[in-house]
C-alpha cells in the first residue's frame, strides 16, 4: 500500500514540479494562471499522500522527508511526468495523457475498500475533472487551430506517445492491490481511458502511429535521465543544509 501511495504522490509531485517551471513564462497570462493552478492542485495532492504514507509507516517522518530526502531510484512516478516541458504542445499533451488516466483512476478509486483512499480520491476528483477539461479543450485548440499548431501537437505526440502506456499497465504492486479490491484493475480501466483519448484525438484531427514501443519502469524506480536533475534542483536546500526548518 505504501509503495502504491508513493506512486500516486510522486506522479503528482513531479508533474506539479514540471508545471511550476512554466510559471511566468506561459504563452499568455490566462495560461500562466491555469498551469499554476494545476501545479497547486497536484502539489497539494502529493502532500496529502505523503502525510498518509508517514502515518502508515509510523517512522516519525513527515511529508518533506519523502519529497526531499529520497534519491531517484526510490521515486515511483511514471516516466511520462518527468519528461521535460518542451514547447507548450509537449506540456499540454503530457498533461492530457496524464489527466485522461488520472480521471478514470480516481473515479474508480472513490469505490476503494480503503476508506482513506476512497475519500482522497473523491476530494481530488473535483480538481482532476477540471484538469481533464482544461487539457482536452486545449488539445482541440492546438489540433484544430492552425496548420502550425496541428503540426506541433503531432510532433509532441510522436515524442511522448512511447511514455503513454506505462500509467495504465499494472506493475506487481498494482496487480496485488487490485486483487484485494483496493484499487481498480487497470486492464479494465483501459478501454474508458482509450475511448476518451481517441474521442479527443479525432476532434483534434491528430492520430497515432500504431504499434509504437511503450517504455515502462518508472513506477518501479527505473527512471529516465531527467529525474536526477529535477531532484538535484528540488532538493538543493534540504541537502545542502540538512535537518533545518524552513
Amino acid at each position, binding site marked *: 500500500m505504501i509503495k502504491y501511495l508513493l506512486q500516486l504522490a510522486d506522479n503528482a509531485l513531479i508533474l506539479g514540479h514540471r508545471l511550476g517551471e512554466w510559471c511566468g513564462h506561459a504563452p499568455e497570462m490566462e495560461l500562466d494562471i491555469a498551469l499554476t493552478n494545476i501545479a497547486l492542485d497536484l502539489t497539494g495532492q502529493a502532500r496529502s499522500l505523503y502525510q498518509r504514507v508517514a502515518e502508515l509507516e509510523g517512522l516519525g517522518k513527515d511529508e518533506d522527508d519523502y519529497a526531499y530526502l529520497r534519491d531517484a531510484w526510490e521515486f515511483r512516478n511514471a516516466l511520462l511526468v518527468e519528461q521535460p516541458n518542451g514547447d507548450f504542445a509537449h506540456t499540454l499533451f503530457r498533461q492530457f495523457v496524464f489527466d485522461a488516466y488520472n480521471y478514470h483512476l480516481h473515479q474508480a478509486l472513490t469505490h476503494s475498500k480503503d476508506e482513506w483512499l476512497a475519500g482522497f480520491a473523491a476530494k481530488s476528483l473535483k480538481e482532476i475533472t477540471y484538469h481533464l477539461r482544461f487539457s482536452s479543450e486545449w488539445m482541440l485548440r492546438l489540433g484544430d487551430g492552425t496548420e502550425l499548431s496541428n503540426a506541433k501537437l503531432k510532433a509532441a505526440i510522436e515524442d511522448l506517445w512511447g511514455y503513454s502506456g506505462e500509467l495504465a499497465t499494472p506493475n506487481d504492486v498494482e496487480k496485488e492491490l487490485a486483487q484485494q479490491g483496493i484499487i481498480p484493475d487497470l486492464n479494465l480501466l483501459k478501454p474508458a481511458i482509450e475511448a476518451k483519448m481517441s474521442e479527443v484525438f479525432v476532434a483534434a484531427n491528430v492520430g497515432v502511429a500504431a504499434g509504437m514501443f511503450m517504455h515502462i519502469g518508472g513506477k518501479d524506480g527505473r527512471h529516465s535521465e531527467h529525474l536526477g536533475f529535477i531532484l538535484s*534542483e528540488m532538493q538543493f536546500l534540504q541537502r545542502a543544509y540538512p535537518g533545518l526548518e524552513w
Partner: protein
Amino acid sequence: MTSLNFEAIFQSKIDDEVKIEPKDWMPDAYRKTLIRQISQHAHSEIVGMLPEGNWITRAPSLRRKLILLAKVQDEAGHGLYLYSAAETLGADRDDLVQQLLTGKAKYSSIFNYPTLNWADIGAIGWLVDGAAITNQVMLTRTSYGPYARAMVRICKEESFHQRQGYELMMAMAFGSPEQKSMAQDALNRWWWPALMMFGPHDAESTHSDQALKWKIKRKSNDELRQNFVDVTVPQAEYLGLTVPDPDLCWNEERGRYDFGKINWDEFWNVVKGNGPCNRQRIQARTKAYEDGAWVREAAMAHAEKKEQRRMQPEAASKAA
C-alpha cells in the same frame, strides 16, 4: 457646454470625492496619466513573477512551494485585473504589452534585482510587498473608480503575501546561523531598493503635483517612504537583523525615524536599464510572448472555426 465647463465639473467631482467612472468625461491628460500608471502597475506584476518564479523549483518544503506558487499566481491575476482596468480607459492590452517589451513602458525597478538566496523570497514579501501596500492602500481611495476597486482586492492579497513573507523571514532569522545570514544578506540587498520604490523625492518628482490634484495619488512619495520606514524598522529589530543604514536613528522630536541618503545614481541607473537584471527580465518576457504566439494564434483560429461551424452546420459537415 464648453470644455472649460466639463473640466470644472470633473474637478468638482474629484473635490467632492465622487469617483470618476469609465464613461464620464475626463481630461485627456487624466486618462493618459491613469493608463500610464495602471499599465506600469500591471507590467510590474507580470515582470515581478520572474524573480520569485526563479525559486519555485527550489522551494525547500512542500508548504513553502505551495505558498510561493499561489503568490506568483496571484500576481498574474493582479496583472490581468489591472490590464482590464486600463482597458476601461480605452487602452488595448496587446498594445500595452508591446510597450513593455519594446522598453517604451516602465515597470517597477525593484524587479530588476536578482533573487540570490531563499531568504530573498521572504524579503520580497516583507519589504517589496510591504512597500507596495503602503502605496496601494492610498490607491484604494484613488479618484478613478475601476482602479480604486481593483486596488481594494489587490491590497487584501498583498497584505496576505506580506505576512507570509515576514513569516518566512522569521523562520530564517530564528533558524540556524546559515539561515540567519541568508536573511541578513537578503535584507542588505533589498532594503535600499525597497525605499527607492516610492520614487524620487517630492521636489524632483515630475508627475506628482497634478496626480495629487486629481487625487490619483493621495500622499507624496516622501510621506509614503517615511511611513514605510517607521513601520518596517521595528519589524527588522524583532527579527534581530540589522538594517543596512548607519544613519538610521529614532528622532524623538519628530516621533519618526531619520534615515540615510538614498543613492539616486543607482536608482536612475536601474530606471535607465542598467540594473542587474533589466535585460534578462525583458528578454524572458519577450521569449514567453514570441514562443507563445503560435499558441495564441491557434486558440484564435479554433474559436473562429468553431463559430463558423455553429453558423453553417451544413456547409461544415459537407466540407468534412
